[in-house]
């Protein structure tokens, strides 16, 4: 596989999409569909989380099945910040990222000693560990989760309104996508992509492979933490369910549907999966079956994901 290179139409397409998203809350309000602003925010947040997994899995080649642990850790960090009086997003969000990133650094330091399925399983085990820790942490609400007293403020302005939180999430996602796009073409991004292809060869070229991997893993964890912090604001709660392995599975499924290793893979996947949920749930109570069959269809017939249908990752 070659290094990531953006498709030529990618930038204009992203520009159009951004304009449409900027107008979305106004449009929805005009049509009296304010409910969907919250839904759209949720999609943006999951797009961010799936994109953070894309950094780890798509570019770094590390198949983590415990990514939700960092997602959840970010949510809890945000809830703890808010409960202890830090309500400014400019502090609380970076703090949440730092907490999730440091947690990922510790998990990575142990897990990255293993390879292949062992890595998949040990990341899974760490996530379960974190899940049970939060479930039994009674001072943080245990099973019920930790409620937020209020949403954060951004530069002193409250994010209480749905549109305000929507734009915050959109801003975060935009920044992260730009960062990932630049990173993928910068030195660091080329190194981690080359490590994904052939770890031993990189070691033999003098690269301290472990360090690059670990940083990539921690960075992905921090970005997942950002998504978690935003989600806690949206739902008003940091719940241990966010750390469950099925949540990691959902993020993976999103990314695979969207296209692993494509810059917009996570975004496409979140839109498709959450959109499908919304649509299918309208038809039947048992929409999970439809979703499952659809996923099987993707595996069997579009193994490279939806984003792959539109662009090439390599030439």
């Amino acid at each position, binding site marked *: *596989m*070659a*290094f990531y290179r953006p498709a030529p139409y990618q930038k204009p397409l992203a520009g159009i999409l951004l304009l449409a998203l900027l107008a979305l809350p106004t449009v929805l309000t005009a049509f009296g569909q304010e409910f969907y602003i919250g839904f759209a925010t949720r999609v943006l947040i999951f797009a961010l989380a799936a994109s953070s997994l894309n950094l780890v899995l798509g570019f770094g080649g590390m198949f983590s099945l415990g990514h939700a642990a960092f997602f959840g850790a970010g949510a809890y960090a945000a809830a703890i910040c808010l409960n202890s009086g830090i309500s400014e997003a400019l502090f609380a969000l970076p703090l949440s990222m730092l907490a999730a990133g440091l947690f990922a650094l510790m998990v990575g330091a142990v897990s990255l000693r293993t390879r292949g399925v062992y890595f998949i399983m040990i990341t899974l085990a760490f996530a379960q560990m974190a899940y049970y820790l939060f479930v039994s942490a009674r001072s943080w609400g245990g099973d019920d989760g930790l409620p937020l007293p209020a949403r954060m403020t951004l530069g002193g302005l409250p994010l209480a309104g749905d549109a305000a939180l929507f734009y915050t999430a959109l801003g975060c996602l935009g920044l992260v996508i730009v*960062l990932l796009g*630049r*990173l993928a*073409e*910068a*030195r*660091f*991004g*080329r*190194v981690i992509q*080359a490590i994904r*292809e*052939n770890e*031993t*060869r*990189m*070691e*033999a*070229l*003098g*690269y*301290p*492979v472990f360090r*690059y991997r670990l*940083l990539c893993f921690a960075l992905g964890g921090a970005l997942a933490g950002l998504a978690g912090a935003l989600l806690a604001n949206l739902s008003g709660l940091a719940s241990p369910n966010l750390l469950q392995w099925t949540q990691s599975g959902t993020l993976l499924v999103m990314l695979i549907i969207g296209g692993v290793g494509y810059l917009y893979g996570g975004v496409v996947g979140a839109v498709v999966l959450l959109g499908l949920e919304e649509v299918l749930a309208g038809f039947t109570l048992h929409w999970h079956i439809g979703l499952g069959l659809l996923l099987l269809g993707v595996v069997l017939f579009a193994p490279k994901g939806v984003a792959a249908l539109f662009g090439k990752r*390599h030439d």
Partner: protein
Amino acid sequence: MTEPLLDVRQLSRRFAAVDALKTLNFSVEAGEVHALIGPNGAGKTTFIHHVSGALQPDSGSIHFAGRDVTRRSMHQRVAAGMARSYQITNVFRGLSALDNVALAVQGRADSGSSFRFWRPVRCETALFDEARGYLAQVGLADQVETVAGNLSHGEQRALELAMALATRPKLLLLDEPMAGTGPEESARMVELIEQLARHVTILLVEHDMAAVFRLADRISVLVNGQLICTGTPEAVRQNADVRRAYLGDHL
């Protein structure tokens, strides 16, 4: 007398119940081409893996450029000036020849940190100019943009060599650079190694005896994990143990 560039002392390694390497003493002097030969299964590749750091010995030490590197990892040895090529071609098949070598240049400490997250690599012209230089050196100037997987076998071997050179090694470990190449490609590879030998010390593992005897300043013979002889090509040719090891049954 100056210290050897590579000095292997009392190196031993067992796999399960088999002695793969038995208290080996081996050195490479700066500036020489030192060839390591021996029948199949003698432990040549195992030995190279130990020198390069891919495997750890049970006992013994490896000194390189005056420092004990026995417990150093592979990337630390590369940074210290030891580069290797692989017996089975090991290049990034999805990347262009240029990107392959540019990665090797980028990995060198003096080309700057790779913990850079913003500036696109394609803006770093110095990196690619240098990489082009190494490709020209191994005769791949016309194949710069070709995807490595589409290069011929011999060209891939040359690319592998360019990548090793791009780490600016003091010592080049070449593990059967002629493996699988046709006679024409072999001849070109011998010429290439001859040129390289003017600037860099080489430890060469090779089956092609014509190439070995033409290139090597000294030859060591490894049989069943033991060194039975080290000397000039002429001395090795005359050595009774070597003749027995290679011609044994026919004498």
